[in-house]
């Protein structure tokens, strides 16, 4: 009797994740879809006019903003993350690797708002002073995000590289290949699917990040002419306006969140497909 009751309770605990994800989809979509239907999906996604006071809900500028900071972050975050992964898995002594791993854990643990604060206090003035523009810019967002996605990339890519069987490396070295030839032509291709998953998850992290971005990108709803101009991302749009939005305006913010959610779902599907292809 007691045993079956406990089993039922445990079963319910396991159900919570499934219920949560269903509830999240239902509640976000029930708010977002009616507005997108009314405004028209084309208008919502491709209009550059975001003017909630006059019922204009176009998020094109924010799509561009999100993609710009995300791609910017990947451009320097991925090479750096890969270098660090190769360093940890192939070069560093266990002692050094241990220290570096705790540092990466700490990077992952630092709250995003602290990164945003650091960006605001250091990177924004730096850009304003030495590169130009107002400082608050897509570039500032990309720099901060590039650091923030490192732990995601390194954790997964490093595991993928370590999972390559030793025989591959030894075989290659025995055939007279140099160490870099072995890493670049044997190890990395063998770890390919894990590395792709790492990069895509890093991309998901970057596109979903809110606080660090909202504090450094200036949040102007305009298509930027260059990377030192301000942009607004989808995430920033929600956090900036949710405090006072009501009616259609609030629904439009839910619709923005819904588009973001769809992006994340697509990225996760890519990860799953990539990992499956690797098996």
């Amino acid at each position, binding site marked *: 009797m007691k045993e079956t009751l406990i089993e039922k309770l445990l079963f319910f605990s396991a159900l919570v994740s499934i219920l949560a994800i269903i509830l999240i989809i239902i509640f976000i979509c029930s708010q977002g879809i009616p507005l997108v239907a009314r405004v028209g999906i084309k208008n919502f996604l491709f209009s550059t006019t975001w003017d909630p006071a006059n019922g204009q809900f176009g998020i094109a500028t924010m799509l561009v903003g999100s993609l710009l900071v995300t791609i910017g972050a990947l451009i320097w975050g991925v090479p750096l993350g890969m270098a660090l992964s190769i360093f940890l898995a192939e070069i560093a002594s266990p002692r050094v690797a241990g220290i570096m791993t*705790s540092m990466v854990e700490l990077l992952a643990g630092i709250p995003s708002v602290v*990164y945003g604060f650091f960006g605001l206090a250091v990177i924004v003035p730096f850009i304003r002073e030495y590169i130009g523009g107002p400082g608050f810019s897509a570039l500032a967002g990309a720099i901060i995000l590039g650091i923030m996605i490192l732990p995601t990339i390194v954790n997964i890519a490093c595991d993928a590289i370590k999972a390559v069987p030793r025989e591959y490396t030894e075989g290659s070295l025995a055939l007279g290949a140099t160490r870099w030839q072995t890493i670049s032509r044997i190890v990395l291709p063998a770890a390919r699917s894990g590395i792709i998953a790492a990069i895509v998850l890093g991309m998901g992290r970057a596109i979903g990040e809110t606080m660090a971005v909202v504090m450094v990108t200036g949040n102007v709803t305009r298509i930027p002419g260059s990377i030192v101009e301000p942009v607004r991302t989808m995430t920033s749009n929600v956090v900036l306006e949710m405090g006072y939005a009501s009616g259609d305006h609030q629904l439009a913010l839910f619709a923005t969140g819904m588009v973001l959610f769809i992006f994340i779902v697509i990225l996760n599907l890519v990860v799953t497909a990539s990992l499956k292809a690797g098996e």
Partner: protein
Amino acid sequence: MKPFGNRREQLIYYTICSGAVFVALTLVAIVAFVAIKGVGCISWEFLTEIPSRMGKEGGISSAIVGTLYLTLVALVLSVPLGVGAAVYLTEYQPRVSRFTRLVELSAEALAGIPSIVFGLFGFVFFVIFLGWGWSVLSGGLTLALMILPTIMRTSQEAITAVPVEFRENSLALGATKWQTTSKIVIPSALPGIITGVILSIGRSVGETAAVLLTAGSALGMPVLPTDPARSMAVHLYFLASEGISMERAYGTALLLIIMILIINYLANLSLRRFSYRLKG
């Protein structure tokens, strides 16, 4: 292993190493910068006084309490649910089952959802639909959903790592399934489970966007779970982005970083104990 040979190889070697050094220096730079700028702000008054004039004066005591309160509410719900789910999947389901796969997929999906989307959900579900308003309860439960995947996954790993013999011996002695699970399996896996819980505390403490949308940003001291609250992370956001007080922003940021350092240290400590215990 074979050293990096010719000049080109050595150049690549140094490039990779300098990448690693760069990352290390970046981390040190962030922590040192905040520490140097913030240490002067931290005083007894800063820790124990309620903010006044939007945070321009006074301390951050209500934000500290708000942070701890939100985290506590999140843990009260997510720890039993997460550990319960992990126990069910590892002990009560066959190794490969469609139900397990479905739960794991849901947890993975939850883990990938950006915090702002959790914030939107928490707002429409807890704040509006259930009518709890901006409150510690709404914020804490939103956080609970966010940390549930971490607690579940780490618990699952810890429980799976408990040797099968432990269970077999207990069952052979006549213990029931639940006696075995609660008295043998969970205690053996406890340090691993605790590691996951500690990491989740870190996530709750630092979370900003979701808390802002669900717990609000009231500066008062939260007492009841139905009171609105402002966490330290939310406080830092307002102090810095609205230029209220950079000095207090540095102090708050430093306090957050110190908390994360302690949390990471405890997590590592507990993980080390876990591997030690399983080795015997």
